[in-house]
């Protein structure tokens, strides 16, 4: 008797979310099977990796990744163009770090100006991220959403403490929205429910269950992502069907494994390779768990993950 591959099929389907405009627009999600198991279903869109850009110099990034951008990182427009033109980024994630009260506390109007300048300079899709300060993000992202009107951006992150204003802004200016909760699948579901109860279309949502780096709780992120995917597919839970975001770079490029020098830690191997590998391995794990969209920093890590995706799809 010949071997028959056992196949699992699901009633549920991950929602497809498109962002950006014209020929550079991208879509993520849409699959009705587990990650890369295309023999069990269809996977219309491959995972997308966005290059992270910040609105101020990345002084807190370790040299391995800071040096890559040293000629452009003083100017978000130049930085974004460099990613698009030189590094062939398919999408840019602009993090408005300088608006954080503990950083430069720049105003929402400043942030809106930056968004307008960056959007005028690039044609790939833009993800607009706040500084992860609940109150300030509610101001900044509202202004940013308005500035990005007509560009079909992804804005985020809406959290339990500030989602109402951010959802309203995304709704008014027709953007996609990242809903973030802190490593808890039940809270992730609850936030998606609350957001859709405001009249926001679930087909415009992206779920961020919160990321973590390899060695720093990655298994929690992995598990939550995997269970979200299974709830969406196997239980056909409509609230758990938005694509998943992994905001990888910011969690990887601060841990000691990506910072400690060769001389301090000779047994860990060369710092540069170590950091790049750490980001690539963290990101690869998450696409296997079900992440559809990643935000990353080092071009070589991104290339490595893209190559893995090429081989898996």
């Amino acid at each position: 008797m010949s071997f028959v591959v056992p196949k699992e099929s699901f009633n549920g389907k991950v929602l497809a979310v498109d962002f950006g405009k014209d020929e550079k627009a991208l879509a993520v999600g849409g699959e009705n099977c587990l990650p890369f198991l295309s023999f069990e279903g269809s996977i219309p869109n491959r995972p997308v990796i966005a290059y992270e850009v910040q609105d101020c110099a990345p002084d807190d990034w370790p040299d391995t990744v800071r040096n890559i951008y040293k000629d452009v990182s003083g100017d978000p427009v130049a930085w974004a163009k460099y990613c698009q033109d030189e590094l062939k980024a398919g999408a840019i994630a602009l993090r408005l770090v300088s608006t954080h009260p503990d950083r430069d506390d720049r105003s929402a109007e400043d942030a809106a100006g930056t968004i307008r300048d960056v959007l005028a300079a690039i044609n790939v899709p833009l993800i607009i991220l706040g500084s992860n300060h609940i109150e300030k993000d509610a101001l900044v992202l509202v202004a940013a959403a308005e500035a990005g009107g007509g560009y079909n951006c992804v804005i985020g992150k809406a959290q339990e403490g500030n989602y109402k204003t951010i959802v309203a802004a995304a709704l008014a200016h027709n953007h996609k929205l990242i809903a973030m909760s802190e490593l808890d699948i039940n809270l992730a579901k609850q936030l998606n429910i609350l957001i859709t109860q405001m009249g926001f279309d679930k087909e415009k949502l992206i779920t961020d269950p919160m990321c973590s780096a390899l060695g720093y709780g990655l298994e929690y992120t992995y598990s939550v992502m995997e269970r979200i995917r299974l709830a969406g597919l196997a239980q056909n839970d409509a609230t758990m069907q938005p694509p998943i975001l992994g905001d990888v770079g910011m969690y990887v490029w601060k841990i000691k494994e990506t910072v400690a020098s060769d001389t301090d830690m000779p047994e860990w191997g060369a710092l540069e390779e170590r950091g790049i590998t750490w980001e690539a391995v963290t990101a690869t794990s998450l696409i296997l768990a079900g992440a559809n969209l990643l935000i990353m920093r080092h071009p070589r890590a991104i290339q490595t993950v893209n190559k893995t995706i090429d081989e898996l799809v």
Partner: protein
Amino acid sequence: MLIIGEKISVIAKKVREAMNARDPKPIQELAEAQWKAGAHFIDVNIGPAEEKGEDLMKWMVESIQKVVKAPLCLDTTNASALEAGLQVYNSEWGRALINSTSNDPERFGMLELAAKHNAEIIALTIGKGGLPADAEERCAIAAEIMARAAEYGVPLEDIYLDPLILQVCTTQDQAMHSIKAVKMFQELNDPPMKTVVGLSNISNGVPKQMRSLIDRVYLTLLMYEGLTAAIANPLDKELMDAVKTTDVFLGNTLYAHSYLEM
């Protein structure tokens, strides 16, 4: 857990009058209300419909499918009326469910219709010889129906076995026999047989204000044993909340603070 909304029934005076007058509005309103309340199927019970049953079932199916995008459960003992309904049935939102066949030779024709029209079918585990005494007898009847279904070409996955729920106020011991039967039915096949009950039978004859409580507690016990579907009243919010809560405990839905609103 699947709910088959029971409100469109010839037994209800309002529905019966609308059927007789061919006034679609009250029927469509009931269909919509049940669908919005979370019913997965809408039961269409036209009774024996001895006069113009074909016309009536056709009209019912067409009227209801104009307003709800849900599969229907066609409920009549009149086989030609049932077939007339199946002929106009739109399966875009799911296959039709026939209610019902049994081990009574007079009901075998329903299996033929299920096979012919690719419909699912409810099988009551009773025969010609009166009510089954216990779960074991229900299983014996179920096995006979399953064998007969195979003869007619109805796949076992398309059958919902119904243990027949009896009134708690007159046949109290039968309540547990039916629950046990739901558990045993599943073991008759791999993958497990689907099961269904006509829930409100349990509270037939009890004072009106107690019916909802009795229905929902009984349904919770049935769900624990793996019940697939219940013909029940989706407009009973307490019942629906009990279903959603039990589904959370059973791991069928993921908990969130707002799970009752979903």
